[in-house]
């Protein structure tokens, strides 16, 4: 005869930290939806050559502006139709995910490095250095981003690399502002004071005491800036000075489709939905991280 256990052991034992985190992550709808969207789009970008039914650059002028399959004259040969040059829209959309992800990610890394450096330095040293960095941030904020980016792109030539460079050099302000105030708070805490008293070098204090503790906010700002960078790069493409043709950029697809949208609305709705979904996914992921890492939700 077996002894029946009336109490489920797991409910008595304290939950391990990892399990608690898993439970919180899986119970957080916002985070989950965001993660699923991003994983899907990253997957599409990684396996683009396998997924795309056609060459995204192959033109077929006899098959221009073929409607998508849900339209009565659409065919499965081109599930999302073709553009004004007869290129397969689905294939361009699939390859476009690579460009958007790369642009967003590179802008985020560049602006993150610049902004975090400025912010941590300003917050840690304070005084005059803080004043100077504050001044730099204020000056940057006063410059109209899109106009400046367009001008530089026009003069330096519009290429993928230039779009990333100019936006990466312009979008660091939020990183700087937020890491500065986070560093200011942390600098005054006991463990930083203790590290200073023990005689740790500034590099060591920044690397092992400050950065790990501002990482949370950095991740949240990183998602915001990645989304922002993707939207701004798409705006530049839309204005004709972003990612140059024939690259399959979503913003450029909307721009090219603009003159056909009244008769073939899908040419702008499809890439627009893709852009919207990607940015929404990044924002949801960021919101989720913020909720999950907020101390008051950790119980």
């Amino acid at each position, binding site marked *: 005869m077996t002894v029946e256990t009336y109490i489920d052991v797991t409910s008595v034992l304290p939950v391990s930290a990892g399990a608690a985190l898993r439970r919180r992550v899986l119970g957080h709808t916002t985070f989950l939806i965001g993660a699923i969207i991003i994983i899907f789009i990253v997957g599409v970008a990684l396996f683009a050559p396998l997924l795309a039914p056609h060459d995204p650059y192959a033109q077929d002028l006899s098959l221009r502006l073929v409607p998508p399959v849900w339209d009565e004259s659409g065919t499965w040969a081109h599930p999302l139709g073709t553009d004004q040059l007869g290129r397969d829209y689905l294939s361009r959309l699939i390859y476009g995910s690579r460009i958007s992800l790369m642009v967003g990610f590179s802008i985020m890394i560049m602006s993150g490095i610049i902004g975090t450096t400025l912010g941590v330095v300003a917050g840690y040293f304070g005084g005059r250095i803080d004043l100077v960095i504050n001044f730099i941030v204020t000056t940057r904020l*006063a410059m*109209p981003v*899109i*106009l400046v980016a367009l001008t530089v792109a026009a003069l330096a030539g519009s290429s993928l690399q230039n779009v990333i460079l100019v936006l990466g050099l312009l979008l660091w302000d939020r990183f700087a502002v937020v890491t500065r105030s986070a560093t200011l708070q942390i600098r005054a805490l006991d463990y930083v004071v203790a590290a200073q008293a023990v005689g740790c070098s500034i590099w060591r204090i920044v690397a092992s005491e400050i950065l790990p503790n501002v990482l949370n906010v950095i991740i949240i700002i990183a998602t915001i800036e990645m989304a922002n960078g993707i939207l701004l790069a798409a705006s530049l493409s839309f*204005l004709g000075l972003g990612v140059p043709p024939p690259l399959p950029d979503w913003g450029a697809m909307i721009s090219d489709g*603009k003159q056909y949208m*009244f008769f073939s609305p899908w040419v702008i709705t499809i890439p*627009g939905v893709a852009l919207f979904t990607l*940015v*929404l996914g990044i924002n949801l992921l960021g919101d989720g991280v913020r909720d999950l890492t907020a101390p008051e939700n950790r119980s």
Partner: protein
Amino acid sequence: MAAVPTDRSRQAQGKGRPLFVYFIKRSFVALLVAITVSVVSFLLLHVSGDLAQSLAGPSASAADVAQVRKAYGLDRPMVIQYLDWAGKAIRGDFGYSFFLKQPVFPIIADRLPVTMMLGVSALVIALFVSIPLGIAAALRPNSWIDRLALTVSVFGQALPSFWFGLLLMMLFGVTLRWLPVSGTGGWQYYVMPAITLSYYSIPTFMRLTRAGMMEVLASDYIRTARAKGLRTPTVLFKHALRNAIIPLVAVAAVQLGFALGGSIVIEAVFSLHGVGYLGWESISRADFPVVQAIVLILALFYIVLTLLADLLNAFLDPRIRVR
């Protein structure tokens, strides 16, 4: 640590003096920012590419480029060019447009009302949408309306503005035929662009209103007002909203500055001939005196608006002045 003010230092400051000192300090910083912006934008323009080359065109010979360089004074040292330009710009002389062969300033002044109209109406729309939503969300946290407001702002932030504009254009301009599709003219031409532009600021305003209202509603004086039997609308609008809305005023000024700078995309979508559209046109025809002037003027608008916002904040909240 701030020193504990002695009686004498308090007297020395006098009534209203700190505000004045703050005003002077803050204006000085604003002036420095304006000068720095002008230097940076000038440098960017001259460093990112060869102005003479883009003016002469891609097929121009080396001799032609050299001639253009000389004709426009682009062969002089950069410092001289900047000082020449800045010295004239202070007096409102932004030079001649390469393309239109007219003085730059009147061209921009002509387009400015369109952009101002667009920016201000976008701001008004944003406030009209976000304040009621923010109040409703604050009154019933976690209710359906709070969630709706949150969803609207999350989705709104993910919408590419130019795409949203095109969708509005298809719906109201083509399908329903309520509004003109694009162009510049009467108020009807501003409706869709203003709605598109207002989308930027709605989430910010909504969050501020919600947070402000929730904080104020939890305060003692609201409890007192309720306890002495005042009607709910009186408490809400006369006591709570007035205080909750203070931070919004300053943020609205800053948002207007951003909106003026960001209007270029929306003006391009709707062919609204404002300053942003002029900037876009000028960039594509290598008309850099106009571009440079527009960058500076938009930056000045932003600087003045943030200065006003800071002063207003300092006026309303004395703690800021001593920082």
